[in-house]
């Protein structure tokens, strides 16, 4: 039996594909921003001298990093439901992805914090900078600058992983594909188109982060170190 592909039959659904791609980007954007905040907090928490806080942060990071995202999504989905809380699938997806990417971000940020030379903090103290100023200018921003490439690839991976949210029927690109393939019986064509769209989305995200890096870290551009 030979393979017969009929792309036009599927491509005429392009508005749905486009809407799905936009929803995937939205999902990824929400989870990236919230996850970056959560992850930074967890990284700071892990570095504190309070054993309870640093222990809790460690348990969070290790639990998330050693269980599959699919299981985490189901746990959040049914966990919230069993507490009697009703949210849209999209909200649950954002929550689960945030919790997930927060743990990975925490590990990356921790590496960034550890790479800050002790002497720079002492120098800042010598210059009578306040604790907040030291945290912001000497620790946080340089740490982000150091781990920026690792962070951005983690966020691109998150966008790809968001496809798993189709399993709790959250509206995004893969869910759209599942619907279209069950409607047209053209599964192979549908998923090829979706795969191409994901490749384009990841290229767009990488280009976006690269541009953002140029704006955020002008020093890097002057020094000529690649992002």
């Amino acid at each position: 039996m030979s393979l017969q592909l009929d792309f036009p039959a599927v491509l005429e659904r392009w508005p749905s594909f486009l809407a799905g791609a936009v929803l995937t980007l939205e999902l990824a954007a929400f989870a990236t921003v919230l996850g970056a905040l959560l992850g930074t907090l967890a990284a700071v928490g892990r570095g504190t001298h309070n054993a309870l806080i640093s222990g809790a942060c460690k348990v969070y990071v290790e639990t998330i990093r050693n269980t599959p995202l699919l299981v985490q999504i189901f746990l959040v989905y049914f966990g919230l439901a069993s507490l009697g809380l009703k949210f849209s699938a999209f909200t649950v997806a954002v929550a689960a992805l945030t919790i997930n990417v927060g743990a990975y971000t925490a590990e990356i940020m921790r590496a960034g914090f550890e790479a800050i030379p002790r002497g720079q903090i002492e120098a800042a103290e010598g210059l009578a900078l306040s604790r907040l100023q030291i945290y912001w200018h000497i620790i946080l921003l340089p740490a982000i600058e150091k781990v920026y490439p690792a962070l951005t690839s983690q966020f691109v991976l998150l966008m790809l992983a968001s496809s798993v949210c189709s399993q709790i029927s959250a509206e995004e690109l893969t869910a759209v594909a599942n619907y279209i393939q069950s409607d047209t019986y053209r599964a192979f064509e549908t998923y090829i188109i979706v795969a191409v769209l994901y490749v384009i989305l990841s290229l767009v995200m990488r280009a976006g982060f690269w541009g953002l890096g140029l704006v955020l870290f002008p020093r890097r551009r002057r020094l000529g170190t690649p992002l």
Partner: protein
Amino acid sequence: MGGHLNINHLMFLGQGALWTIGLSVIALIGGGIVGFVIALARISPLKSVRIASAVYVQLIQGTPLLVILFLGYFGLAAIGLKVSPLAAAGASLTLYVAAYLGEIWRGCIQSVPKPQWEAAEGLALSRTQRMLKVILPQAIRIATPPTVGFMVQIVKNTSLASVVGFVELMRSGQIVNNSLFEPFAIYAIIAVIYFAMCYPLSLFSQRLERRMGRGRSNLAPA
């Protein structure tokens, strides 16, 4: 409908866990073989081979595993091959793992210090001899910790094979849940089992990394 979680359900989950391990091993071996070829192709002297392998890596790394699984499952069926979920999942995971391991290993091969390459060339070793006798033995040492770390990703990613109907741990959890309908408890058990499989690998990878770090500092010139 209803009923309580009993020993039979747990046995069923245990069987699923064994299939998760089985699928992980298949993905590791298949992905390792293809990934090794990719790693060598990425540093090939032929430009066309380098470009082709780079395109492969970029395409796979830009596509979610879930979509690759669907493509494997429906795609192989579309060319008229009747495939079992195991074959579809094994093939898709192999292609996926190969792209990532290929990139990891390329980095490891290239991080073997330049003088080693030059010395091997100076000793008039052929390209194959230089790879087999000088570069690869050192690259394997460098590659061990990240490879063990990536095995955690493989184990976790096999959970996606549940969507094409392969009964591994995740799918067996869903089946048990369909009869008991206690989703939170069952998925919590599933999470614990995954954790029990992945955490030792994570710890092992960290320990290997630390040991390597020590070896490195000993080698540093005084």
